[in-house]
C-alpha cells in the first residue's frame, strides 16, 4: 500500500519529504505535494521528515482521510515531479503553530 500526502501539507509545503524520497515519487502544484502510488516504494522515510505529519502509510491512515488516496493518485499523474527541497510557503510556520506541531 502506498503512502499518501494529506491536508496538513496545505498552506505549508515544507517539502522536506522530497530530500528523503529515494525514488522521486513526489509531484507538486503551487499549494501542496502528491505521491505517485505507482512509484512510491513504501519505505516510509518521508513520514518522519514532514514537520506537520501530513504523510501517512495507507494502513495507518485515519479513515476520514481516505479521499486523499484518490487525490494523490490522480493529481500525481499530470503534475511535474519535484526533485529538491524548496522554501516552504510564507504561511507555513503559522499553519504549523495552528496545527500544534
Amino acid at each position, binding site marked *: 500500500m502506498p503512502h499518501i500526502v494529506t491536508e496538513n501539507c496545505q498552506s505549508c509545503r515544507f517539502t*522536506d519529504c522530497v*530530500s*528523503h*524520497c*529515494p*525514488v*522521486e515519487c513526489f509531484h507538486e502544484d503551487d499549494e501542496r505535494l502528491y505521491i505517485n502510488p505507482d512509484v512510491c*516504494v*513504501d*519505505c*516510509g*522515510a*518521508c513520514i*518522519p*521528515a514532514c514537520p506537520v*505529519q501530513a504523510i501517512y*502509510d495507507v*494502513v*495507518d491512515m485515519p479513515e476520514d482521510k481516505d479521499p486523499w488516496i484518490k487525490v494523490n493518485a490522480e493529481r500525481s499523474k499530470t503534475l511535474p515531479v519535484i*526533485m*529538491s527541497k524548496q522554501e516552504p510557503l510564507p504561511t507555513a510556520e503559522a499553519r504549523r503553530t495552528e496545527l500544534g*506541531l
Partner: protein
Amino acid sequence: MLKIHIAIVGSGPSGFYAAEALLRSDLNVEVNMIEKLPTPFGLVRSGVAPDHPKLKQSILVYDRILKQDGMNFFGNVTVDEDISVEDLLKTHHGVIMACGAPLDNKLNIDGENLKGSHAATAFVGWYNGHPEYRDEKFDFKQKTAIVIGHGNVAADICRILSKPVSELKKSDIAEHALDALAESQIRKIHVVGRRGPVQAKFSPKELRELVDISNVTTEVDVNDCEIGEQCKVELSDPKNISSGKNLELFRSFSELQTSPELTPHSPRKIKFRFYLTSQKIHGAETVEGMSFFKNQLGGQAFSQTVISTGETEHISCGLVFRSIGYRGVPFKDIPFCDDQGKIPNKEGRVIKNGKAMPGVYVTGWQKRGPSGIIGTNRADSIETVDCLLADMAGVEKTPKSGSDGLTALLKKRQVQIVELDDWLKIDTSEIARGKKYGKPREKFTRVDEMLDVLSV
C-alpha cells in the same frame, strides 16, 4: 567550463544519492564511483530482504544515475588494496567515502564464538548472495533460534527463518539459501531485547509483516506490555508515533505459552522477549543455550537504561543471531572513530585533528552510523555534497586527471575494472538465469562467476 573530478567510494544508496546531487549541480562534474564488488547497489542488492521487492525498485533510480553522462563505474576495485585514498586525491578534486557499516557489533560475552552463533550480517549476506558470505553454514536442523536485537534487521531474519519457502522461491533469494531453508527444522524463534516494547526499534510495518506470515504465531508476555510512567511520557511525544503502534501490535499478539512438544509440523512461533541482557552462550562446541540477566528500566523518558534485577533466565537453543548494530571499516589515510564505528565528520566534511581534511568527505552510514532507511541517505548525501560544492570554488583551475588517471593507475596495477557495460552484461545474465525458476534474477554468488561472464 573546466571539469571537477570527484571519486565516490562505495555504490550503495548513499553513494548513488551523492552522485545524483553532484551530477545535478551547476558545475561541470565527472563522478567516478569505485566499488569493491563487480556489482553495484550495496545493501539494496545484498541487504534488503528478497521478499521486499518493492524497496529494491530504488535500483531503477540508481540505474538511471549510472547511465548519466559524466558518471563512470569502477567495479571490482578495492580501496586500500588496489588503490589508496591518497591516489584518489592525486587524481581527483574530492573523494566521498560511502562505504556503509558492513561489520557487526559483538555481544562481547562468553560463548559468542561457538559454532551456531552468528552475526546478522553473515546471515543476511548469505541469503542475499553476497560473495563474502557465500560459504557461511547455518545449522537449520536446530528447532530453536534466538535473535538478539529489536530492530528491522532482526525482523528480516525472523521473516526469512519462518516464512514457508514457497513464499520465497519467486524472489531473488540466492538458490543455495533457498535449498538450505527448505530443509529447516526451526519451530521457535525468540527475539530478545534489553529494554521494553516501547523502546523496540522495529518499524510497525515490519512488525505487522511478521504477524501476517502464514502458519506462524507471534507471542508476547502480557506482563511485558504493562508499561511505566516514563514509557507513557515517551509514547505521548507526537514524534514517537511508531512506538505507540508497536505497543499496540505487541498487545495484539497471543499470550506467551509454554508450548507442548515441538513437532516438525507444529506452526512456527516467534516469541518477543523483553528486558533481557545477554550473559553467556552455553555449549561445548556448538550452541546449546543462552543465559540472560533480567532487567527493569530506570531513568528519564527517552534515556531509560536497564537495571539488572539480579535474576537470570536460561533459554535452550541451537542457533544465535546477533543483530545489535553495525560498524564501518577503517581506511588508511582517513581518521576513524572507533567508539562509534564511523568516520569523524561535520556535515560530511571529514575531520582530522580538529580540522576539515581537504578534499575528503563522507556520507551514509559511514557518516552518521547505522540508522535510518534508504531514503534517509538521500537527504544525508545532499548535505555532504552541498558542503563539497561550497569548498570547490576555483579548484578546477588545478586540473586533475580524473577517470583517465584512475584507469591508467589501475591498469598499471593489473586490476580488472568492471565498467558500466560489464555490469550490464552481468545483470542481463543474472536476469536470464532467474527466468528458468520464475525469479526476477538468480544472482552470481562468487566474484569469479561474475568475471567469467565478461570473458565470454
